[in-house]
């Protein structure tokens, strides 16, 4: 903003500000009460780095690692779920609490409702099966998981399902390893995968 020669215009341009945050919070509380918030998100810290968590009225829809660009994750949510995406500490409170408990070693399963809509078809089927049947502290190979969904030849497709898991950590794709015990890949990076596996094997007190 370049100053003008006109003090009246300068005075208009420097209109006083007031408590924006409170008014914004008020607006978003009303928006939620009216059902106008389709996706609420927050950032939260964890031992595997900052996470972005996003929820819809149906449940947890996305967990994003730091190495994914947050803005790109939000763009994806806007395009694939709804552009009515807003930040909300309150709506994401339960998710963040359960994640904290998990990382503190005080929780071995999540009680969160999940919104699976970002996973489709076979990938979703694999992820749901993984979520339902591979508990805390256990690991399976891509082949075993493929067999579990009744398609032992599909271990490559299982690998793709893991790589595109929209809800990592909670849907435990870190428990899926290459046969022979090799780590395989991980969307959050291999150090994160190692750390999660160590946590669940009781090796590493994290917090």
């Amino acid at each position, binding site marked *: 903003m370049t100053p003008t020669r006109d003090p*009246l215009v300068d005075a208009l341009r420097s209109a006083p500000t007031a408590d924006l945050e409170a008014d914004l919070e008020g607006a*978003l509380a009303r928006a939620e009460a009216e059902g106008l918030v389709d996706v609420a998100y927050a950032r939260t810290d964890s031992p595997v780095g900052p996470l972005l968590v996003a929820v819809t009225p149906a449940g947890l829809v996305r967990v994003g690692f730091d190495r994914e660009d947050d803005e790109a994750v939000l763009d994806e949510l806007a395009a694939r779920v709804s552009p009515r995406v807003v930040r909300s500490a309150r709506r994401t409170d339960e998710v963040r609490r359960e994640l904290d408990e998990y990382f503190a070693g005080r929780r071995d399963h999540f009680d969160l409702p999940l919104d699976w809509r970002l996973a489709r078809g076979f990938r979703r089927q694999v992820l749901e099966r993984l979520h339902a049947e591979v508990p805390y502290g256990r690991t399976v190979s891509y082949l075993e998981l493929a067999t579990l969904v009744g398609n032992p030849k599909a271990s490559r497709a299982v690998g793709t399902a893991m790589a595109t898991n929209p809800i990592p950590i909670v849907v435990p794709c870190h428990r899926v390893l290459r046969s022979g015990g090799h780590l395989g890949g991980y969307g959050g990076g291999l150090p994160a995968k190692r750390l999660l596996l160590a946590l669940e094997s009781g090796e590493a007190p994290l917090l």
Partner: protein
Amino acid sequence: MRSTPVPPPFQRLLDEHGPALHRFCLAQAGPDHGPDCFQEAVLAALRAYPDLRDSTNLRSWLFTIAHHKVIDHHRRTRRLEPTADVGAHPEAAPAMAATDPDAPDAQLWAAVALLPDKQRGAIALRYLADLPYADIAAALGCSEAAARQNVRAGLARLRSEVTR
């Protein structure tokens, strides 16, 4: 067929334009009613957002909504105070002057609140929303020339009332 850009996450609009939108509402409707205009504008924008056809000029879209909320507020106020001789008594202005008459520019904001809708809107869209005249004209529903004329007339009126 041209594909229209997908609207960005609504939060990005709030982050980019929220502070200016808030000042825009408070400057025109005062500290008592400005927050409500702001909240109404945010809610109206959220309601319309998923069906938005053209997301190329979101700033203008957002401020146009807020402009209408401010006008709604002023119309309501005028209905509630039918005897008020609006314009003749800037000291009776319901806006900024209501808090602290000694605050810097309190007199100015009181005078802004009492401008006719088109002049107040034109001035706020120009100097608080920083919109180009084409967008101001669209928001006011008039020609670009008329938008410029409203800004000039509003400034002239403020000058005569504030610098006395």
